[in-house]
């Protein structure tokens, strides 16, 4: 999923302080799972902002709404009838949702309420870690199912650098060396032969190096 983290309330206050009427818009998908932008977080932020502004002597109208998704037009359409009444929308979706909402509602400023961090997994409640950088040419089949692009600090493709020590990466003693993980796994799978194969030069044009990307699937287009 896409992992996001809450923005400090102070930062959001700064963005909306001149508005009279705002909508806090949550998303039911990834940001709900990582407890940053779901219905509950919408409620908490709205409540905190209401009290903050009241305390400042400002009676700001703050409404709450959470959509199934903000990265799909059909769900964004659900606020079509009400969007115009707001001076601003604070979207607690990931950066994709914030932008897609802005594209659908041109005349209303949309502010992000979370910091979108990475594609990752929930290791345990309250701990999310990165697993994929969406490079567009997945190599997991060759690396024992562990991603060298997202889990090796240098994105190396042919084994570890010289800084790998005791299983840890040279950039931090707390970070496992991605290549150590790959080798351990290949050994466990009895597939160390894979490790000996030299990776051909990776085509990074499907990664960010090729500029903004798109997927076109004529087979599913209507």
């Amino acid at each position, binding site marked *: 999923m896409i992992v996001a983290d809450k923005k*400090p*309330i*102070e930062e959001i206050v700064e963005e909306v302080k001149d508005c009279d009427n705002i909508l806090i818009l949550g998303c039911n998908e990834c940001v709900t799972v990582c407890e940053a932008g779901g219905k*509950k977080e919408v*409620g*908490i932020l709205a*409540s*905190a*902002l*209401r*009290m*903050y502004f*009241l*305390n*400042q*002597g400002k*009676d700001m109208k703050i409404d709450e709404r959470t959509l199934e998704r903000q990265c799909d037009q059909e769900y964004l359409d659900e606020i079509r009838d009400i969007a115009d009444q707001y001076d601003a929308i604070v979207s607690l979706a990931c950066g994709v949702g914030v932008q897609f909402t802005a594209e659908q509602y041109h005349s209303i400023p949309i502010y992000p309420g979370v910091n979108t961090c990475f594609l990752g997994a929930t290791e345990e409640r309250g701990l999310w870690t990165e697993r994929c950088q969406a490079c567009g040419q997945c190599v997991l089949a060759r690396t024992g199912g562990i991603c060298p692009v997202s889990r090796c600090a240098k994105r190396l493709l042919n084994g570890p650098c010289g800084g790998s020590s005791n299983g840890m990466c040279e950039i931090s003693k707390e970070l496992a060396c991605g290549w150590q993980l790959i080798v351990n796994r290949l050994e466990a799978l009895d597939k160390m032969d894979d490790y000996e194969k030299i990776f051909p030069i990776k085509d990074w044009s499907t990664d960010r190096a090729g500029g903004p990307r798109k997927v076109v699937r004529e087979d599913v287009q209507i």
Partner: protein
Amino acid sequence: MRLQYPSSVKIIRVPCTGKIDILHILRAFEKGADGVYAVGCMEGDCHYNSGNFRARKRVEQAQKILNTIGVSGERVQMYNLSSSEGPLFAEIAQEMTERIRKLGPNPIKQAMKKAA
């Protein structure tokens, strides 16, 4: 035991303090409560194992949010006691009431009155 405790304390029963959410605490302040405290079982004695630990974390988060928005976080507290400690329950109610008295009324309540 017929113990006395301040009549300003309103009890809201929950199945376990783990049920209490930050939102419940914030809403209480939005609605004008001067203080909120959670009374959970002794640490290590939760029937659901970690309910009272969760409550403590949420109380701490609510304190942080309240500090940020200018409502003293001290107005929210967590207490732990066992169900047989009636006298302690009354003592805590007294202690909390005194704490809130010192802090004065909830500024949100006053701001709401002004705005109305």
